[in-house]
């Protein structure tokens, strides 16, 4: 038997405990470095942006060339875009995810669909923006509008929702499907009454993460739905809208004499928006994990 390495370690002058200690501390340090940026961003933005936050800031229209007043239209616009994107991408994404997990057989056609979904997730966001401009704004003639922007964001969100739905469905053991069928259920009845409820927390998490990404994006709405300034709130899905990410870009680069306070305040609002969604997703995930019994 070869005990070479074992013997070598025994003979080493540096105690193994110490080596381990150093190793652990090194890894701990690296981990700390990775969370520093996000911590820094949150703390810095909060300190700089908090003074700008007031009821007026959240509930009033901008005044004085957006140098004063509130950011209500940008907040409302972002909510509209999120709701619109959700209305389109959630039903489509869940349906596609269920189909891929439960019904699709493994052939070249479904493999192609999967590759397409993965590729879709890797497309740069500005490309979505240009695609939306070409297809929804110009070809379908929806114009620069909430509907064009929501459709564009939906294409971007779909891969996330589809793959998390498929994943969540697959994580429910196959045996429950056999039992459901054996008790006289159809495949769909079994999915609806047994599998889907178990997969739902995972699906909701995916939806939130997908929408969160969409809400924070600027490029896809740049050419499709966002507008520089709107004196009133959008009144129909065919209207253009202001939105937080694009508004941040505008007030950061396009308006001379913009108070820095308002810029940070707007960033803080978007940050809270996105982090809150993230938090909700994490809570749902950990609670469902705690409740799982099989």
């Amino acid at each position, binding site marked *: 038997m070869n005990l070479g390495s074992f013997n070598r370690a025994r003979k080493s002058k540096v105690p193994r405990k110490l080596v381990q200690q150093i190793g652990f501390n090194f890894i701990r340090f690296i981990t700390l470095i990775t969370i520093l940026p996000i911590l820094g961003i949150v703390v810095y933005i909060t300190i700089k942006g908090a003074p700008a936050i007031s009821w007026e800031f959240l509930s009033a229209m901008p005044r004085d060339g957006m140098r004063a007043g509130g950011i209500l239209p940008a907040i409302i616009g972002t909510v509209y875009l999120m709701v619109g994107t959700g209305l389109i991408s959630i039903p489509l994404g869940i349906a596609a995810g269920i189909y891929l997990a439960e019904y699709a057989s493994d052939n070249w056609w479904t493999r192609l669909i999967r590759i397409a979904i993965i590729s879709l997730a890797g497309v740069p966001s500005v490309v979505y923006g240009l695609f939306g401009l070409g297809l929804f704004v110009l070809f379908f003639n929806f114009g620069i509008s909430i509907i064009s922007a929501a459709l564009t964001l939906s294409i971007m969100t779909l891969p996330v929702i589809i793959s998390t739905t498929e994943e969540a469905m697959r994580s429910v053991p196959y045996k429950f499907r056999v039992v*459901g069928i054996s008790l006289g259920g159809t495949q769909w009845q079994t999915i609806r009454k*047994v599998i889907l409820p178990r997969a739902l927390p995972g699906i909701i998490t995916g939806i939130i993460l997908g929408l969160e990404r969409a809400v924070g994006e600027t490029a896809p709405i740049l050419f499709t739905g966002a507008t520089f300034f709107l004196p009133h709130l959008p009144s129909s899905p065919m209207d253009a809208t202001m939105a937080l990410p694009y508004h941040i870009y505008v007030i950061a680069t396009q308006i001379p004499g913009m108070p820095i306070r308002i810029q940070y305040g707007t960033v803080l609002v978007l940050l809270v928006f996105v982090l809150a969604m993230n938090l909700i997703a994490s809570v749902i995930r950990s609670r469902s994990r705690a409740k799982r019994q099989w």
Partner: protein
Amino acid sequence: MADVKISIRNLHLRYTDGKYPLRGIDLDVIENKINVVFGPAGGGKSSLIRVLNRLIDMSDVAELSGEILLDGENILDKHTDVIALRRKVGVVFSVPIPLPLTITQNISFGLEVAGMKDKKQIAERVEKALREAVLWDEIYDRLDDSAYSLSGGQQQRLCLARVLALEPEVILLDEPTSALDPVSTAKIEQFLEESKSQYTFVLAPHNQQQAARVADHAAFFLQGALIEQGRGEELFFNPRIKETIDYIQGRYG
């Protein structure tokens, strides 16, 4: 001789991966009896059970031929209503697999998918099934708890109860006590003895002692072939064919 409930003729089953578990089976399942199919692992017992309520449709099957007459109708016919068949021929698996739902929902699932809507009627059927499976007295006060809060033996009786709720005629049991302790096993066997006047049981027993204890009619399976069948006592205490004798005397398996 009692009536034949299921008559199996020249049944062949071959999977797409090349496994060939059933090679020309001829077997009679006797009505209102405990019909035991036994033999060493891999002999085709589980596959036979999966064929009898067409759960086999969920597997990749290359060949399924022959005839299975249930009350004179061939259930392998392509026009067979498999959903109705599965309500008529229930199955209990070797390990308890409660659905990840409440105790009540585990039983009401089968009723609801069958189209039963009346809440009161469903509740009655749930209670009746739980009583029949000798589980009601233990759990009547926590029907809305998760089915996974039950012990293993209780879970398996719950799995039996949800089959009984559908008022089946035939109940297939694929080594139903293999994951259970002796007390739970005895409860299941007691249920079989007491209720065979209402049902026809097909049981793949968990071991030979169980087979000998409960079998009214028995069939010995070896490597996809049916070697010998007959009345329970006869087969276990007076087998005629060499393979059966060897198996029962413990020479293999």
